[in-house]
């Protein structure tokens, strides 16, 4: 397996060719991926809102956004513009500091977690050795932001929503972490790059979803609960709590909470793609096709195709999961809080523990298939 395109090296090389010292070229490179990633994540979240609208409309035999741009694609942009220009109201008797800080505390960890999402062999911001663990630990900060939003709004619905959000994300973090642990055990690493590489080789057949079907389902249920998607959207259940912890928010602060929740959903879908659906790998490996056609793996155009196909594949898988989430949203009714906790503690937790045990046993029994 060739490493593929190294964007950093080529960029630094191009700048040094122009006469810049190598250190300066590297310093110029450092902020680029981050800025690119923030922009890309925003676009991904906006696309997710558009997809949510369109798929919901289709599921309810409506048309959905239609007249703003082709197929209503400019609706998210219009939303952003509207929210940017709205007056930044903070209601009476709120706690101004905490009220302003809470959306940031929800928003930043989610955007930070995108650091570890790989779109290709080298198309990742940082290949950390703690990769997936960083995501889990960062996503555990979000409940503090939600509690802060709920407390500072000086509104009983907000407080209830914040408490529910925190209870929910604490209880579903455990099955989530345990199913990730099973994956980490199979690939002997927490790094997202290693996890994807361990799934490569036989195309669609080598993906983790076949080796971890139970873990896949547990992970997706827990990820939906973490992202507060509909079967588990108690924290913002509009019939009971107006909008939960978002009730008192408006304008840019609301936009941050909203973008944060969608970015979180996209992130969960991307993590499913990376952990279970082979990340950037195509169903039929490109390397195998190249071998068949007799093209060398180091050919520039092949590398370009592999790189862009990797990005497309990752996003395609992620949005497929997103589609499933929206479909699920209009299929299952919202659970009650006791059913939610019951499902988390009495169903998902034991099953994920059994799954972990089984994985360990299989790894010892069949080291060739389950990562020796």
């Amino acid at each position, binding site marked *: 397996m060739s490493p593929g395109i190294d964007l950093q090296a080529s960029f630094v090389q191009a700048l040094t060719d122009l006469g810049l010292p190598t250190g300066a070229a590297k310093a110029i490179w450092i902020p680029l991926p981050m800025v690119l990633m923030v922009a890309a994540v925003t676009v991904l979240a906006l696309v997710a809102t558009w997809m949510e609208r369109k798929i919901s409309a*289709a*599921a*309810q*035999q*409506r*048309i959905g956004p239609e007249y703003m741009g082709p197929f209503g694609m400019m609706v998210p942009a219009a939303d952003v513009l509207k929210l940017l220009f709205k007056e930044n109201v903070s209601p009476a008797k709120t706690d101004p500091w905490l009220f302003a800080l809470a959306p940031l505390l929800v928003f930043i960890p989610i955007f930070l977690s995108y650091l570890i999402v790989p779109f290709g062999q080298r198309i990742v911001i940082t290949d950390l050795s703690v990769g997936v663990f960083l995501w889990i630990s960062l996503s555990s900060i979000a409940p503090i932001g939600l509690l802060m939003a709920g407390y500072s709004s000086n509104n009983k619905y907000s407080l209830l929503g914040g408490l529910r959000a925190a209870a929910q994300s604490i209880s579903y973090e455990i099955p989530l972490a345990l199913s990730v642990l099973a994956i980490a055990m199979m690939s002997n690493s927490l790094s997202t790059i290693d996890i994807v590489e361990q799934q490569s080789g036989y195309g669609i057949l080598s993906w983790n979803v076949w080796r971890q079907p139970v873990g896949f389902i547990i992970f997706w249920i827990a990820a939906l609960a973490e992202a507060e998607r509909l079967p588990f959207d108690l924290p913002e259940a509009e019939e009971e709590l107006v909008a939960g912890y978002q009730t008192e928010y408006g304008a840019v602060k609301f936009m941050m909470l909203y973008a944060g929740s969608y970015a979180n959903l996209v992130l969960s879908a991307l993590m499913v793609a990376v952990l279970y659906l082979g990340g950037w790998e195509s169903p039929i490996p490109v390397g195998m096709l190249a071998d068949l056609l007799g093209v060398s793996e180091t050919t520039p155009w092949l590398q370009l195709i592999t790189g862009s196909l990797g990005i497309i594949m990752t996003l395609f898988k992620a949005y497929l999961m997103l589609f499933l989430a929206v*479909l*699920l949203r209009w*299929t*299952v009714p919202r659970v009650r809080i006791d059913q939610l906790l019951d499902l988390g503690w009495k169903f998902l937790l034991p099953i994920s523990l059994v799954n972990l045990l089984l994985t360990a046993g299989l790894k010892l029994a069949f080291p060739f298939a389950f990562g020796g």
Partner: protein
Amino acid sequence: MLKFLKQVGDYTKEAVQAAKYIGQGLAVTFDHMQRRPITVQYPYEKLIPSERFRGRIHFEFDKCISCEVCVRVCPINLPVVDWEFNKETKKKKLNHYSIDFGVCIFCGNCVEYCPTNCLSMTEEYELASYDRHELNYDNVALGRLPYSVMNSDPMVMPLRELAYLPKGVMDPHDLPADARRAGKLPEELLEEMESLKAK
């Protein structure tokens, strides 16, 4: 031990069943995605109001005999009939007539009881205005030709309601103009009844 195992087995069965039901539900939702939208794209498409639709009331000034029956049968005595007695002809002469559609409940009693049929229901329903006083229609406004969805605006595509579609058709789009609706038409029913009576 056996009871415990049985409980675990039952629990698993229930979980599998729940998963199966959720899968069936997902299939239903997915099936809905490929159906044509049932929504009407309102300003560009409009539903043709049904027979006996109770829309804006039409009033014919010349037919009115100022009997005020409409006022009496109205639940809130809404129509305003302004007349004066003409001593020469010994008849009432109608000066003004008005109905405030901001208050009217479109029950149709006035139309039902009008002895000279000068009141009638139209199929006009787009009465929105910026000022509620504009809804107080005088005899001139009441006498205007009502707006009809059919053939009045080339931008508007009239759509038939569900009950007026041919048998088995669910989609009002791309329907031939002479497509017959399901069941017998009122005039056919009448004909049938009369032929029965003649026998």
